[in-house]
């Protein structure tokens, strides 16, 4: 099952320090690993994929880093959106995180279009995924582990 991000269950945590709503699915950093979350129950279009990829690029800067894409519960990912995510070349490794057989099928199509430019694995456990990705960190902050 999908591991809920801390505090996600609590609706009040959607408010940041200034009392404004934050996006629980926003791309985030976890110890040098980029966490990209594709919203559950959503059809991922090209535009959504572009926005997500832009967030990931912004987070990574010019340095390649491991990427976790959480596709748990995603309804579908358009072909064009798959092409956008497949082009992501700023990653050292990609872990696809899903919880159901459907996620697994969607995951295998997500990056299956062309030979991956980096190692790609499907995980159903977030912690296992992060552990696997940790091995691909190149950033100095990886020492903070």
């Amino acid at each position: 099952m999908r591991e809920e991000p801390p505090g996600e269950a609590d609706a009040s945590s959607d408010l940041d320090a200034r009392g404004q709503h934050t996006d629980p699915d926003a791309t985030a950093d976890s110890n040098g690993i980029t966490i990209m979350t594709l919203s559950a129950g959503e059809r991922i279009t090209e535009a959504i994929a572009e926005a997500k990829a832009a967030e990931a690029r912004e987070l990574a800067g010019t340095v390649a880093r491991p990427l976790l894409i959480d596709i748990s519960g995603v309804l579908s990912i358009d072909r064009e959106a798959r092409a956008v995510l497949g082009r992501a070349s700023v990653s050292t490794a990609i872990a696809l995180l899903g919880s159901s057989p459907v996620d697994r099928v969607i995951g295998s199509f997500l990056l299956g279009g062309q030979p991956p430019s980096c190692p790609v694995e499907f995980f159903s456990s977030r912690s296992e995924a992060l552990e696997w990705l940790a091995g691909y960190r190149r950033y100095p902050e990886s020492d903070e582990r």
Partner: protein
Amino acid sequence: MSADKKDPRLAILVDSIVRLSRGDLSSRIEPSCARDEVDAVITGVNLLAEELEQVYDQFEKRVESRTAMLRQAHLDMMKMAMSDALTGLANRVALMEGMETALARTHDGALPPALILLDLDSFKNVNDRFGHDAGDRVLQEVAARLNSVVRKRDMVARLGGDEFAILLPEATMDVAMQVARRALQVLGKQIQLEDLYVHSRASIGVRLGDPGQSAEDLLLDADTAMYAAKREGRSIIKVFEPLMLYTRQSRSQMATELRGAIASDDLVLHYQPVVELSTNRILGVEVLVRWQHPVRGLIPPDTFIPLAEEIGAIHDLDRWVMLHSLRQLAEWRRTLPLDDDFQLRVNLSAVELKQLDLVDHVRALLRELGVPAQNLVVEITETAIVTRGEVEMYSLLSLQQLGVGIEIDDFGTGYSSISYLRELPVSMVKVDRSLLVDLDTRPGQLDFVAAILQLIRAAGLEAVFEGIETKEQADKLRDLGCSSGQGYYFSRPLPAGPVTELLTGSKYLKVPADSL
């Protein structure tokens, strides 16, 4: 979901796969919220269908674009096959098609097409003198000018070489003549190629098609009219007449016969004595070729020599004359007490003068027959050397070095100035007969001839007068101090037999006391 209860999604899945197998690649199934294995299969099938649809789509687009490319390539090839690469005009294939279309319309009562054929006069000279690049540019300019005199629906074509055609669909003779005259007019203007000015006049044949006529016949008729124009004097327009076709056919028959006559020695040589005016001593003979035709009888050279030039047989003809006349000279030298300076004068065409092996050929013949080179004089026309081609100059210089005399024929009819002749390896000038015609009657003509004679002498050349027909002419020329001449007064051209008799009797020609 338990195994004994049938999952309804499986039936939906089967239906969807059936639809996909029938080619409906847009078929998709909505997975349920369960997101279990069945949903995974559904999702997989959906994604595979999407991939397949995409591949088909791309495939179709590619086929479409390749088909478009093929179609374009086909159009390009058609255009290439139908147009002339140098000028961009239509070519012969396109013209034939255009004619066929225009002629077919006459069946529905449309006016017949007119075909105008144009052949540039002296275009070969442009290539020879200025090179093929210049020639190509002249052809392009001619194409542009012809395009400027036609309507949009008319077709201008290049048939190859310097031959052009204009097809006017649904025309009248008036329209055709207007276009032909305009074409003649625009081609009459000089073409400037950087610092060169070139004339590109044309001979034009016009044929208004007959309803039901074939394209081939229309082309042949226009071509026949064009040749008639060319023969009649160039830079003129001739409209097709059926008689022209007859003339052309008989000409073409004569061409075949002439080739045969050269090959089978059916030509005859006549010799006209050239006489020393002060003593009537026979200085030599000029060779004149005749054609003994089995049906038409003896054909004069002014009929068949232009034909030989036109059909490219002049080279063979010249060689035939040179060989057989030199053989005759060798025989006379063997059997008769000829003077050492007795000369055989042989006419050489412009074409022959351009043959690189001319000098070798003459040298070999002279050696083989044992004839000294100084006993041979070649007569060339002014027009043959006016362009001063390199090969012509080489031929003349080499012949001169060999010892062969060189004489300019028909002097006074062409372009040469005396000072120009001085620069050429020429030793003699034959003054054209036209200068003698009015010698007895026209006031001042004698002074004029005297002045020409003086000029020729001042240039260090000798003058021979031809066409001397009366005693008065001979006397006057003699009084002027002219040394030699030929003409009916002395003797008409004779076959070898009578000339042999003449030379056997005396070295001096007996002439009648009165004019002929």
